[in-house]
């Protein structure tokens, strides 16, 4: 686990630490490397919270700007992503507060889960399956969606999830259990089709 979707421009923790140290000295080019390394993940997280692709891009950019303004307070040597994640999440929540009517997270508003694809290995079917999973995810609570996103799509280790959410590893496991139960229920027709 760990690191899926992370662009390889910043290949390792040492290079990342060097780049962040340069950012703390005000080097914007170095920050460009960090932004490019985490952009895809940040937009994906924002999209999972906001469920609005255009707004997600906008909020993710704003989160990177805020992170740069606060980067001198970042403790070098600590993992960067959980720190960025928390800023990003707060930006998303602020964006939701600004437009509660359009971005309601009520599960009643979620689209119905599409039928299971006929051949899950075909590219078109993979797309259908992803749509079914997204629709099922949309019916879950924000807490469940968040932890499933981190565990399943970002493929983070429990330690990283715990750091992102500021919860103990035991809570990660119990929350993941509840979230998977909810997802299993929401995805029941698709899961049965694959059996």
């Amino acid at each position: 686990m760990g690191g899926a979707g992370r662009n390889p421009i910043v290949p390792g923790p040492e290079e990342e630490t060097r780049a962040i140290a340069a950012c703390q000295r005000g080097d914007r080019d170095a920050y460009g490397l960090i932004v490019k390394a985490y952009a895809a993940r940040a937009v994906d997280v924002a999209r999972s919270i906001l469920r609005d692709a255009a707004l997600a891009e906008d909020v993710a950019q704003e989160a990177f700007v805020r992170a740069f303004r606060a980067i001198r307070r970042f403790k070098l040597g600590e993992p960067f992503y959980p720190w960025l994640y928390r800023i990003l999440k707060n930006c998303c929540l602020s964006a939701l507060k600004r437009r509660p009517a359009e971005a309601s997270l009520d599960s009643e508003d979620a689209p119905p889960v599409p039928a299971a694809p006929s051949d899950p290995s075909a590219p078109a079917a993979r797309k259908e399956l992803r749509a079914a999973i997204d629709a099922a995810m949309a019916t879950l609570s924000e807490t469940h969606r968040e932890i499933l996103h981190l565990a399943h799509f970002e493929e983070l280790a429990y330690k990283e999830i715990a750091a992102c959410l500021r919860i103990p590893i035991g809570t990660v496991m119990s929350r993941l259990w509840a979230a998977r139960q909810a997802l299993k229920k929401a995805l029941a027709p698709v899961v049965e089709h694959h059996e």
Partner: protein
Amino acid sequence: MSDPDLRVLLMGYLDGELEAADRTRVERALASDPDLKREYEEMRKLKELTAGFAVDERSDAELEMFWTGVYNRMERHTAWMLLLFGFTGVVAAGAYLFFTHPWPHWSVKLAGACGLVGTLLLLWSVWRERCRVLPHDRYHREVHR
């Protein structure tokens, strides 16, 4: 399944996150409890179903465009701060000259003073609102933590 701890540990087992002692405990329970085994299989299938949908990589051009967007916002923020600083300085200097110079009639000075006080009141109102909002802003607390 009777032991709620085992359900939770099952997640760690499924994701390969357990210490050896807990792993052994779950494996023993899986061997002896068909309900637990069934639940594990269901969770494993669910995990398999959602596997392979990790975050999409972006092309270099897309990343460059994203970075340009971030850079522009950072640059504009600096520009706004400089503009605000400069504007405040110019207004303060202008107000000082306006009120200390003997030329304008006192009625013009009074009108100018009204305009200045009105502007200051508006700025104070905006600032006070910001001060009320910021302490409740989760992001603000996060950065200072």
